[in-house]
């Protein structure tokens, strides 16, 4: 899809300015109902588009992403454009700098349409935790788009942008991609710089694309990946144009299916059926399906819900009403308040429920006397889970599973019980725990209440082997 748009631009069938204003028209028409965008960036986007048009007219060679309109999840800093993390605490925050991924998009002349809604600080699986608005699933507006990158997924699915950049800490790119019927890629931890991404759980967070096709995901990844001096966890990778490496040939590729992921009754019967059919399709494409064992999968969610709140509790300490963000100091400038009051009251007033819940959970797990029992124990289990994946990847090139145990659920269905909501991430957290790349691709639909709700297939790859992962996804998409 990006390539088609690119060809139209270079062949001068359409200008980037026209393309951009067409997207704004769609947004104007659809977004009052879907509510995917928190803010639009019209003037800036059109300026950029016109600059690209000039380059094309003067015969300059342009990048594949040049002049193509995209959206950005509102947890990624954009210089001069308000970035809220869907939180009241950053209601007026205007970043003085660009995240590295944004600088890289800009260097390729990407057109940024606006910022998309998400769960507050990316904490959630339905986008219902946004402090501003409720994004609807474009396929069924009575259902959630998934989360935390629900705004990005809905915007892509509803053709309100060509692609979107988002973050994935426990499934926040893949799960909404699954629920909205699009492609979502979480790269290997360290493949993409996290500089300028508002930190949620730093040892899991990774930026990746939500797109209409696997090829588009490859195109975006090639342009955002690589070492960055601002993020010490980013790794120097061989520069690859992943989109040129998609052959669609997966003959003899070994796809591992972890039997544990299909046990128990959490997996919806309709979803299971479609995933099983997808496995058969892969067999027909020439892949070898093999059994692998990942018994730790059962413990992945528990591991995640210890380590992640611990990291949250320390990352969220910066929202203290002192250096940036909302502060009660503005409301009560008198000297009646002490420094401690500013902390306690600012955090109480401007942070949302789920954020506070996780801060408290993490504070408890890290407090004296509990550290060994929770944090250290979880980090040991994390070692075990990583080892299981290593062993599985000795046998298999790629591991296949569902992305989400269910199709899109209804608003309010899981909001009363945090634990219930956490279970939405059961198949996706493992990739973040092990640091491996994962992709969700649409693989079928389940009819529910008269609507055809999409099902996502998750593929997980070896560390830094996005090439094999993307090609495996591409083969499926091509033959679907």
């Amino acid at each position, binding site marked *: 899809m990006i390539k088609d748009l690119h060809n139209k631009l270079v062949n001068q069938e359409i200008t980037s300015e026209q393309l951009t204003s067409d997207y704004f028209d769609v947004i104007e028409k659809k977004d009052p109902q879907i509510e995917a965008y928190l803010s639009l960036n019209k003037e800036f986007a059109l300026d950029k588009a016109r600059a690209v048009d000039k380059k094309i007219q003067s015969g300059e060679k342009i990048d594949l992403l040049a002049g193509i309109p995209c959206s950005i999840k509102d947890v990624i800093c954009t210089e001069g454009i308000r970035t809220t993390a869907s939180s009241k605490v950053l209601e007026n925050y205007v970043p003085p700098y660009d995240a590295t991924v944004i600088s890289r998009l800009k260097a390729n002349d990407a057109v940024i349409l606006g910022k998309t809604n998400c769960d507050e600080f990316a904490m959630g699986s339905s986008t219902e935790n946004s402090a501003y608005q409720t994004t609807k699933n474009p396929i069924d507006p009575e259902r959630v788009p998934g989360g935390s990158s629900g705004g990005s997924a809905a915007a892509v699915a509803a053709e309100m942008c060509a692609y979107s950049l988002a973050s994935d800490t426990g499934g926040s790119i893949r799960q909404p991609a699954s629920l909205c019927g699009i492609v979502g890629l979480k790269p290997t931890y360290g493949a993409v710089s996290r500089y300028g991404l508002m930190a949620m759980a730093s040892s899991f967070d990774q930026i990746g694309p939500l797109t209409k096709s696997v090829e588009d995901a490859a195109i975006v990844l090639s342009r955002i990946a690589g070492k960055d001096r601002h993020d010490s966890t980013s790794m120097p990778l061989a520069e690859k144009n992943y989109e040129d490496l998609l052959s669609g040939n997966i003959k003899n590729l070994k796809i591992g299916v972890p039997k544990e992921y299909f046990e128990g009754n959490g997996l919806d019967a309709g979803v299971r059926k479609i995933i099983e059919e997808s496995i058969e399709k892969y067999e027909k494409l020439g892949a070898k399906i093999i059994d692998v064992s990942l018994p730790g999968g059962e*413990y992945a969610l528990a591991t995640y819900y210890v380590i992640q709140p611990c990291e949250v509790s320390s990352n969220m300490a910066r929202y203290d009403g002192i250096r940036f963000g909302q502060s009660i100091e503005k409301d009560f400038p008198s000297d009646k308040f002490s420094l401690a009051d500013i902390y306690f009251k600012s955090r109480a007033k401007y942070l949302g429920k789920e954020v506070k819940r996780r801060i408290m959970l993490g*504070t408890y797990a890290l407090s004296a006397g509990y550290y060994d029992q929770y944090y250290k124990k979880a980090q040991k289990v*994390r*070692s075990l889970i990583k080892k299981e994946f290593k062993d599985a990847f000795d046998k298999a090139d790629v591991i296949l599973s569902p992305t989400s145990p269910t199709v899109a659920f209804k608003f309010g269905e899981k909001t009363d019980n*945090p634990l219930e909501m956490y279970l939405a991430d059961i198949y996706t957290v493992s990739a973040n725990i092990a640091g491996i790349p994962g992709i969700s691709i649409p693989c079928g639909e389940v009819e529910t209440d008269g609507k055809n709700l999409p099902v996502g297939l998750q593929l997980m790859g070896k560390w830094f082997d996005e090439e094999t992962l993307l090609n495996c996804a591409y083969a499926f998409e091509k033959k679907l």
Partner: protein
Amino acid sequence: MLSKDEVKKIANLARIEISEQEAEKYSTELSDILGFVEKLNEMDTEGIEPIAHITGAKNMAREDKIIEYSEETKSGVINNFPEKKDRFDKVKAVF
């Protein structure tokens, strides 16, 4: 099971003001989640090292070089101070 008093103690450590009702609610919710993560104890981790870094990166250092930022970036930082005096971040007295 986390008692209401324990919840208040945690909230104090986390510097978040909470009401009685909130303490009550957090006590149930956090207890549920802690009950769920108890599952980890079923896993035998005898002799297993806790993970330090997932991709095994070690001692990553960057060049020790000063990068100058523009006046615009600098004022961008300053403009985000909730309270300021000239170019200083104004805060309450610590003592």
